């Protein structure tokens, strides 16, 4: 983007305190991990301010000072924390140099509108920093899990070998454990069996309910809607307790009177319970898409001789499909992530992945859980990417530009 505002050099009275504050802030973390937080703060502020003064006041060569900054801080990092410290130090060094010149040359002003007050400029960058911080807080817990899942030890700990990037410290054994351990495999298969079936049931029933409830002539629509959505509002532990007794009776009847085998009945109970939990999501998303649905289309279809079923599948369904699919995704995730209800209703042969992770975390803090988490994250990303690519493709085929 081209510069909007002409830039000019800023006085040192603005640059120095700001970079010293940034240096002090990072110094807190370095200091905390080396014994003294206060020392870190002071040293960080002084070192960064001194470097800035030296670069701008004495050296006056941006390229040269960049490399000096990177090498100096990287060496300091190496002394304090080995190879990881070296890499972090190099990044910090680059950052300080960039930050110093960014402030000193007034580059931060270049891309903003010329009439902004200093307060607005400050807010603009604070806003960016806040957004970045939120992003970091959301993503870091997930990112931390990934390297730990390659731990050669059975603990949730970054071992010294791992920090030295020693291949000895890493291993695939937790992944091997997941793929060879019967309990993990059983629970993985159960999840892959229960979640899709529960999703199909919730999507069919939820879509029907949403269409029915969107008709203006249905009596007591709001009351019915509230009841159907209640599983989402009632605390899960309460639904689960009620479901436990309700489905126990149904299960006893299915086993006793109809003579169905125990394992099969167990699956039926869990699938039905998860379907109930998924239905509200489908109803809400489909109702939302139905708001934008033009009713005259169904009348036009009827006018041309289509019966209601044909109308539904050929006219209405394709138009509300995005709502149905996102409802289905929510229903799938609800079942796939669910641990409370399945703990109550399922028996061990219906053990799902979240259940296994839950007990695994409580009884044995095993990094296999982290390996599974990593696999699930990768699968989720792959799934979402596929869905997005398919959506773009279908829009392209329909002659719309991807949005």
């Amino acid at each position, binding site marked *: 983007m081209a510069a909007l505002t002409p830039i000019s050099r800023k006085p040192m009275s603005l640059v120095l305190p700001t970079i010293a504050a940034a240096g002090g802030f990072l110094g807190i973390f370095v200091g905390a991990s080396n014994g003294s937080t206060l020392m870190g703060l002071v040293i960080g502020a002084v070192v960064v301010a001194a470097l800035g003064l030296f670069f701008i006041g004495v050296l006056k060569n941006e390229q040269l000072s960049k490399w000096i900054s990177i090498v100096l801080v990287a060496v300091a990092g190496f002394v304090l924390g080995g190879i990881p410290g070296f890499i972090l130090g190099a990044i910090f060094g680059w950052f300080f140099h960039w930050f110093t010149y960014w402030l000193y040359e007034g580059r931060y002003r270049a891309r903003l509108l010329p009439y902004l007050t200093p307060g607005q400029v400050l807010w603009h960058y604070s806003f960016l920093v806040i957004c970045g911080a939120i992003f970091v807080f959301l993503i870091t817990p997930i990112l931390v899990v990934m390297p730990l899942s390659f731990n050669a030890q059975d603990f*949730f700990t970054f071992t010294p070998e791992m920090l030295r990037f020693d291949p000895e410290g890493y291993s695939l054994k937790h992944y091997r454990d997941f793929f060879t351990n019967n309990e993990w495999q059983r629970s993985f298969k159960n999840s892959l069996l229960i979640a899709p079936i529960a999703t199909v049931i919730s999507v069919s029933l939820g879509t029907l309910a949403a269409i029915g409830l969107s008709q203006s002539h249905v009596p007591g629509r709001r009351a019915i809607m509230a009841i159907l959505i209640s599983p989402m509002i009632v605390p899960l532990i309460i639904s689960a307790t009620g479901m436990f*007794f309700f489905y126990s009776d149904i*299960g*006893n009847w299915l086993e006793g009177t*109809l003579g169905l085998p125990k394992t099969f009945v167990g699956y039926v109970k869990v699938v039905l319970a998860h379907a109930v939990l998924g239905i509200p999501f489908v109803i809400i998303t489909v109702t939302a898409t139905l708001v934008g649905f033009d009713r005259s289309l169904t009348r036009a279809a009827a006018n041309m001789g289509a019966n209601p079923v044909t109308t539904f599948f050929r006219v209405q369904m394709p138009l509300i499909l995005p709502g149905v699919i996102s409802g289905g995704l929510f229903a799938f995730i609800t079942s796939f992530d669910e641990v409370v209800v399945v703990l109550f209703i399922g*028996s*061990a042969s219906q053990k799902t992945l979240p259940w296994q992770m839950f007990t*695994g975390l409580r*009884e044995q*803090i095993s990094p296999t859980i982290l390996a599974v988490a990593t696999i699930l994250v990768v699968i989720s990303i792959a799934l979402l990417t596929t869905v997005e690519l398919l959506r773009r493709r279908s829009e392209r085929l329909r002659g719309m530009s991807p949005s």
Partner: protein
Amino acid sequence: MKSKVTALAISAALVAPSAFAQEMTIVSWGGSYSKSQQLAYHEPYTAKTGITIINDDSSAEAVAKIRAMNEAGNVTWDVVDVVASDAMRLCDEGLAEELDHDAVLAAAPDGTSATEDFGDLIVSDCFVPQIVYSTTFGYRTDMVGDTPPSSICDVFDLEKYPGKRSLQKRPIDNMEWALYCDGVAKEDIYDVLGTPEGVERGLAKLDTIKDSVVWWTAGAETPQLLADGEVVMGSTFNGRLFSAIAEQGQPIGMLWDMQSFDLDGWIIPAGLSDERKQRALEYLFFATDTQRLADQAKYISYGPARKSSAPLVGKHASLGIDMAPHMPTDPANAGNVHIYDYEWWADNRDDLDAKFQAWLAK
């Protein structure tokens, strides 16, 4: 009519294959403990009988779940592994089957009856003892200087061993250790603890280290905290410490002084059909014989409950080290042992739990 026929046809089709694949659900504690049972009991049993065994790691909430299942008339568990005190509670409430130990369990190879072989470890009519374990302390060998802790009272000595320690979040054991280190003789501990002043005294002793305590609820927490170096020492089950030391090579040492013995074993929940109860009994007969109990000690350092199993305890299955020195019952480790009093705690647990929780919240 037609739908009834269809239902019957469907159920017949579903029942037919399931008749071949028999399953039973065995409930245990999970982790390396369940693994040792899997290798020592479940796999040989499946090989012998063809019955598939499903593990449910729910022993921690066994009492509550068995109550709920019983109320709902839908008991899905066949055999349950519980600690002795839970077995006594379940037995008192009629939620576990009472057993005639000599009739349903194997005799020792030399013909000694089961009741004699298990001796006084049969603490309840419903309970089949399996292992003797202990709650004891592990410490970081690299964080205690040249003099590793050798007495339980070192846990309360913040000057000699500064740093955090992890203790189980319950009054049991902690109160006894606190009183013992406050100068109460071992045989008087429960007499003192029975008085309100005694409880105050125990809590006051715990108060001296309260700020340095990390409270744990799951057995896996202390090994993790020790591996991270977040605590200097911590209590947990001795088998967990063994696996952290011997199998994971962590710099951890054992402090066996005043280790607290406890029992763990099997119960059969009440309310099973005759067929399932019969199957559960057959499993128990197999899994608690002399050889099987000794086999389990190959995988985890818990002492077998039968006297006749002790001489058969051999080497660790994969490490090849002798298991006997790692057993809580080994004479070298059992020099000063705390025998935890079930009866006393059964009577006083609720009261002390409340006081302990109130103290924690202070």
